C-alpha cells in the first residue's frame, strides 16, 4: 500500500489465536459477526443480541471496561456502532467489541450487570446519541439539560446547534 500501513487482517482463521477470540469462538460461533486486526488492535463485531453474554464470557480474562462509546455512521445503515474497549490486567491486552444498531431501533442490552462502571458511559451515549440500553436502571440525560431536544453527537445534528 502506498501509505505504508499494513493491510488489516479480517480472516477469522488467522485471528482465532487472540485470547479474546479464543474465548468467544468456542462459546458461540454465531455471536461473532466479524473480526478485524488493524494497527495492532483487534476489533470484534458481536451480534447485538449477544453483547451482554459476550461481555460476561470475556470478563474473567478481560476484567476491566476501559471505555464505552458510540459512532454514528449516518446516513448508512446500520447506523450506530457502540464500541466497548476492554482491558485485561492479567494479559496486558486490549480488545474492542462492536455492536451495530439500526437507526430506527437503536437498542442494545445494558452491560451494567457485568461492569457497573458502564453506568455513566451508557447514560452518556443515551444522552448524546439517543441509543437506549435495556436494563439500565437510570437511563437519564447526563450532560445535557433534562428538557433538551435531540441528541447532539448525531451526525445530522448541526455543529452550531439549531438556531
Amino acid at each position, binding site marked *: 500500500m502506498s501509505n505504508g*500501513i499494513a493491510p488489516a487482517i479480517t480472516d477469522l482463521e488467522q485471528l482465532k489465536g487472540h485470547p479474546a477470540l479464543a474465548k468467544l469462538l468456542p462459546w458461540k460461533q454465531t455471536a461473532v459477526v466479524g473480526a478485524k486486526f488493524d494497527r495492532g488492535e483487534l476489533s470484534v463485531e458481536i451480534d447485538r443480541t449477544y453483547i451482554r453474554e459476550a461481555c460476561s464470557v470475556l470478563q474473567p480474562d478481560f476484567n*476491566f471496561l476501559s471505555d464505552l462509546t458510540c459512532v454514528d455512521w449516518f446516513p448508512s445503515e446500520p447506523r450506530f456502532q457502540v464500541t466497548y474497549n476492554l482491558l485485561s490486567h492479567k494479559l*496486558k491486552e486490549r480488545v474492542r467489541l462492536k455492536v451495530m444498531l439500526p437507526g430506527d431501533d437503536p437498542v442494545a442490552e445494558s452491560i451494567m450487570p457485568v461492569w457497573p462502571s458502564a453506568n455513566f458511559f451508557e447514560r452518556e451515549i443515551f444522552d448524546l446519541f439517543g441509543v437506549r440500553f435495556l436494563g439500565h436502571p437510570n437511563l437519564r440525560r447526563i450532560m445535557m439539560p433534562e428538557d433538551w431536544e435531540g441528541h447532539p453527537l448525531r451526525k445530522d445534528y448541526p455543529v452550531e446547534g439549531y438556531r
Partner: protein
Amino acid sequence: MAHLSNTASAEFTQDRTMILNMGPQHPSTHGVLRLLLEIDGERVVRMVPDIGFLHTGIEKTCEAKFYQQVVTLTDRIDYLCPMTNNLCYVLAVEKLLQLEIPERAVFIRVMLNELTRIASHLVWLGTHALDMGAMSVFLYCFREREDILRIFEMVSGQRMMTSYFRIGGLSLEPPLDFYGKVRDFVKLFPERIDEYENLLTSNRIWVDRTKGVARLSAEDCISLGVTGPALRASGVDWDLRRDMPYCGYDKFQFKVPVSNDGDVYARYLLRIQELRESISMVKQALDGLPDGPIKAEAPKVVLPDREKMKTQMEALIYHFKIVTEGFSVPAGEVYQAIESPRGEMGYYVVSDGTPKPYRVHMRSPSYANLQALEKMCVGRLLADVVAAIGSIDIVLGEIDR
C-alpha cells in the same frame, strides 16, 4: 445500607433523612460538581452526583476541525494537565498514521509529560489540603507549580494551554536555557517534597481526617472503572506506563508505588511517591536526551521548518496544503490510552480517510472515577465527603468535556 442501594432515581422519600444540596458552586467540589446528598444526621445515606454544567461539546467540535487543529481543543478538557491530553491525542493520530517519532522528541515529550504530572499533583495536593483546612500547603504547592508553568511558557509561549506536542513531533525546538531551568527545578524539587511531607504526613489532624476514610476495595475499583492513583492505592499494581508502555516509557526506570490500604491517606502517600518518581524520570530524560530532529520525516503531515520554507519550494507547497486543506488520515480506528495524573486517559479516534476526524471520543479518568464516589461516602460522615472528593482528584472540565 442494603435497603438504600437502589440509586435508580433522585427522589428521596424517607422521613427521617434530609436532602442536602452540595454545589454546583461549592469550593471543595473542584469545579462545578453538584452532589445531592441524603443525610441521616451527619451520616451520608445516599449520594447522587449531578454533572454536565461544563459540557461544551468538545467531541462534536473535534469532528468539524482538521486533525492538527484538534490538538488545541485537547488542552481544554483537563486544564490541569494539558501536555498529557496533547500527548494522548497526538499518539492516537500517530498510531492511525503509523508514524515513527524521532528519539529526541520522545524524550522531550516524556520530560514535559512528567513535569505536567508534577504540576497536576501539586494542584491536587494544595487544594486537597486546603479543603481539609491546611492553608499553607496550598501556598507551598503553587510556588513550585509556578516554576513548572514558567518552563511550559518557555517551550510553548503559554502557561496552561500549551498545545506544544504536534502530530509527528514537537512544534519547536525548546530554547537553549530551557534545559538549565529544568535542571534547576530537578535539583530543587526533592527537598520541596520533603517540605510538603513535613507539613502533612505525620500531622495529627491530617492523619485523623484521612486515615481509614473513604475506603475502596480492589474489586470495587475494577468494577466501578477506577484507574490511576486511586486504583493503585487499593492494591492493584497497574500502571500503563510500565505495563503497556507508550511514547518510550520502556526506556525509563521507575517504581510504581502500590498500597493496600485503599483510603484517603494511602492515596495521598502514593501521589507523594509518584512526585518523587516523576522528578527522577525528568532527570533521566535530561541526562539521556539524544541529539537529532524533533519532527518526523513526513512532509505531508508535519509542518516544515520556517527556514526550509524560505528556501525550498516543496516545503512552501506542503505548508500551504497542510494549513489550508489539512492532511488526510487513512481510514481506521484506534484507541490509545496513557497514564494521566488521574488515571487512564484514552482517545478513541475514528478516521474515514478525510482530513477531519470522523469521531473523537475522550475516555476521561475523572468521569469513571467519579462513579466510585458514592461507594466511598455512603455510611460515612458528611465532612468525609470533602476528603473523598479531594482524594480522587477530579477535574470537572474533563468529566463534562
